C-alpha cells in the first residue's frame, strides 16, 4: 500500500506529460452583469420594501376598482345617502334674575345623510358629498399613477430628443438648446403651473374632462430639462472616449457610433432619473388637486380629498373626520416613498461606485 503511494509520488515528480492545461483564471465563477444589477437591487432591503409599496399601490388602484365593482358595485362618483341621527347639544349659562347662574341645555336631533362613519359597506365612510371614500382612494390613485407615468414618459422623450440634438450637433444647436434648457430650468415651477392650470380651467373650449391632458402637458413642460442635460452630458462624454475614436477609424457612421454606445451608457441614469421623478410628479399633481386646479370635481384625486381638511374651509373635517383625508395623505407618502426607495436602489445597483 505505502509502496504504491511512494511510487505514485515519485512518478508525479518525473511525469511531464500530464500537465493539465486548465486555465487558473477560469476556476472561479462570476455573476452576469444583469444579474449583478438585479442582485444588488434585491440585496438592499429598502429597494425591496419600495417595490412592495409600489406593487401594493398599483394593485390597490388598478385591480381594486374591479373588485369593488364586482362586489359592492360602488362607483367613483356614486352618491350614498346613509342617514344617521345626530344629537346636537347646545349649552349656555345665563344669570337668572334671582342672581344664580343656570345652565341652559338645548337638545335637538338632526338626520345627516353624508359623512357616514366607517362601516362594513363603506370601509372608510363617505365624504361630504356622500361618495365612498375607500373607492375614491382607488380612483384617485389611478389618476395619480397614470399622470405620473405619462408625464415622465413625455419628459424623457422630449429630453432625449432635445438633449440628443444638442449633444450630437454641438455648436450653435447646442448653444440654442442649452439656453432654452436654462430658461425653462429657471421658471418657478409651482407658480407657473398654477397660472397654466388657472388658464386651462378658464378656457371654455376645453371640456372639463380633457383638462387633465393639458395639465400633463403643463407638468411635462416644467420638467424635461433634467433629462436633456443628462443625455447631452452623456453624448459629450462619449465623444471624448478613446473607443469612439477607435470606432471612427473603422468607418462606422457617426450617428450609429454615438447612438449604439449612448443607449447603454445613458439608460441606467435615465431609468434612475425617471423613477425618482415619478414621485415628484405625484407631489405636483396632488398639490394642484389640493388647490382645486387638478382633476375637476366630481372625479377623485388624492390631493382634493386632503383639501377637505383645509382649515380655511372650517375645522370640522380637519378635527373630526380624519377618515376623509388621512388615508389619501398616507397613500401619497407611500407612493412617493416607494418610488424614491426603488430609484435609490436602482442607482446603487447600476453603479456600485456611487453607493449613495
Amino acid at each position, binding site marked *: 500500500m505505502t509502496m504504491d503511494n511512494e511510487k505514485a509520488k515519485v512518478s*508525479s515528480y518525473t511525469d511531464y506529460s500530464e*500537465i*493539465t492545461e486548465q486555465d487558473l483564471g477560469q476556476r472561479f465563477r*462570476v455573476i452576469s452583469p444583469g444579474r449583478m444589477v438585479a442582485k444588488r437591487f434585491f440585496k438592499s432591503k429598502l429597494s425591496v420594501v419600495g417595490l412592495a409599496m409600489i406593487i401594493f399601490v398599483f394593485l390597490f388602484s388598478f385591480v381594486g376598482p374591479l373588485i369593488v365593482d364586482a362586489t359592492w358595485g360602488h362607483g367613483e362618483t356614486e352618491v350614498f345617502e346613509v342617514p344617521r341621527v345626530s344629537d346636537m347639544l347646545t349649552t349656555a349659562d345665563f344669570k337668572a334674575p334671582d342672581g344664580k347662574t343656570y345652565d341652559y341645555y338645548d337638545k335637538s336631533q338632526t338626520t345627516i345623510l353624508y359623512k357616514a362613519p366607517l362601516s362594513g359597506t363603506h370601509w372608510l365612510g363617505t365624504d361630504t358629498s356622500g361618495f365612498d371614500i375607500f373607492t375614491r382612494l382607488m380612483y384617485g390613485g389611478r389618476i395619480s399613477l397614470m399622470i405620473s407615468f405619462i408625464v415622465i414618459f413625455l419628459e424623457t422623450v422630449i429630453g432625449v430628443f432635445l438633449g440628443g440634438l444638442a449633444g450630437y450637433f454641438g455648436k450653435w444647436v447646442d448653444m440654442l438648446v442649452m439656453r432654452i434648457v436654462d430658461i425653462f430650468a429657471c421658471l418657478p415651477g409651482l407658480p407657473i403651473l398654477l397660472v397654466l392650470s388657472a388658464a386651462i380651467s378658464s378656457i371654455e373650449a376645453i371640456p372639463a374632462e380633457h383638462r387633465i391632458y393639458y395639465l400633463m402637458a403643463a407638468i411635462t413642460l416644467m420638467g424635461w430639462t433634467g433629462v436633456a442635460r443628462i443625455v447631452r452630458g452623456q453624448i459629450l462624454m462619449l465623444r471624448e472616449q478613446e473607443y469612439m475614436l477607435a470606432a471612427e477609424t473603422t468607418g462606422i457612421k457617426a450617428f450609429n457610433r454615438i447612438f449604439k454606445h449612448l443607449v*447603454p451608457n445613458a439608460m441606467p441614469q435615465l431609468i434612475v432619473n425617471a423613477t425618482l421623478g415619478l414621485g415628484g410628479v405625484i407631489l405636483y399633481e396632488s398639490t394642484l388637486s389640493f388647490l382645486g386646479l387638478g382633476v375637476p370635481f366630481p372625479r377623485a384625486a388624492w390631493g382634493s380629498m386632503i383639501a377637505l381638511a383645509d382649515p380655511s374651509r372650517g375645522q370640522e373635517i380637519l378635527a373630526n373626520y380624519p377618515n376623509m383625508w388621512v388615508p389619501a395623505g398616507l397613500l401619497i407618502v407611500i407612493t412617493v416613498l416607494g418610488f424614491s426607495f426603488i430609484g435609490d436602489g436602482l442607482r446603487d445597483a447600476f453603479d456600485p461606485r456611487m453607493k449613495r
Partner: protein
Amino acid sequence: MGFFDRFKVKKVEGVDDTMYLTLREERQITKENTKIIREFERQKNRKNVKEEEYLTQMKDPSNVVEFDNLHTYFFTEIGTVKAVNGVSFDIPQGKIVGVVGESGCGKSVTSLSLMQLVQAPQGQIVDGSIRYLDSSGKCYDIAKMPKDKMLEIRGKEISMIFQEPMTSLNPVFKIGEQMDEVVLLHVDGATPESAKARSIEMLNLVGIADVEKIYNNYPHELSGGMRQRVMIAMALACDPRLIIADEPTTALDVTIQAQILELLQNVKDKINGSIMLITHDLGVIAEMADLVVVMYAGRIIEKGTVHEIFKNPKHPYTIGLMKSKPSGDTQDDRLYSIKGQVPNPINMPDYCYFCNRCDHAMKICSEEYPELVEFSPTHMAACHLYYGKGLLEQKKGKE
C-alpha cells in the same frame, strides 16, 4: 438594445452556464460574509483590551517586524479573496526589504495589514500574526491589537508613503498644516512653534529649496515629485522605526524616480530605520533592497538577499521575472515574457498557482502546494523542482 441584453441569459457556445453563481449560492455567500465580518469587527472594536492579549515575543530581537503566517482575506460578493495567504518574512532593523510581484499579488495588502488599514469591513486579517518591536523594547502583535492602541503606532513608529502623490495630500489644507499635525499628535509637549520648526527641518531634509513658501502652499500648487517629497518629509517627522513605501515612484517621471529613491536611501541612514519597499520594478529592488521577497497570488514564492535572488533565482517565476527585465548586456534578443496571466484570486486551488504558466510544470504541480525549500539560511523558494534533490538529479541524468 445593448442595455437590455445585459439581463438576458446568454448562451455562448462552449461556455458552461455553471460559470455563473446561482442566486442561492450568492445568498449563501452574503450570509456567511456578514456573519464572519461582524465577528471580526466586534473583536477589533473592543475597548480597554488588556495589554497582555497582544503582547508577544520576537523570534529574533534584531528584527523590527516579523510577519508570521499572515492571512488577510476579503469577503466579497462573489467569494472570499485570499489576498494574503500565509505570508511569513522578517524586516531586520536598519535594512531595506523589497517586496516584489505583479499587481494584485497581495504586496500592498500585506503592508496595509501591518498598518491595520485594510479596507474594512470586507478586508480582515483572519489568521497569523504581525510581531512588531517598538522603541521601548516591547513586542506587540499588530494582528490582535485593538484599534485605539494602533493610533499610537501609526505615523509615529511606522509611517507610510503611498503610490499616488497627486491624491494623497488633503487638497484643502496647506502643506504646513498637514505636516504640523503629525508632530502635534505624536510628540509630547509639542507646541505649534516647535511643530513648525520640525516640519521645516524635515522639508529641508528631503531637499526642498524654498521651504517657507512650500510650507504655506496648498498641495495643488506643487508638482508630483514635490508632493512625494512632502509625503516623505511627513513620514519622517516622528523618526519612525519603519517606513512603508508603497510603490513610491510608480506615478512619477523617470528622472524624478531616481531622485526620490536616492532620497529614501539617504533618509533611512539618517534616522537608522528600516524600509519596506513595495514595487513591481526589479531595477528599483536591485538598487535599493538588502533583502527581497517575491510574492505571487498572495503567497511568498521566493525570498532571499538581493544577491541571491538576482544572481541565483530558483523559482521559475522569479527566473522569468529576471529574464523579462531589460538589461544592457542582452542586445538583440526580444524581452522574455511569462505566458498567461495572474490567476483570479477567488477560490484558489490547493496546488501551485503558477503551474499553468510554468515551463517546468510537472504532474505534482497540479496536485499539491509546494513547501518552502531552503537553499541557504536566507534563501528559500516554494517549488516542486527542488523537492528531494535526488529526484531532480535523476531526471537530469535521463536527459
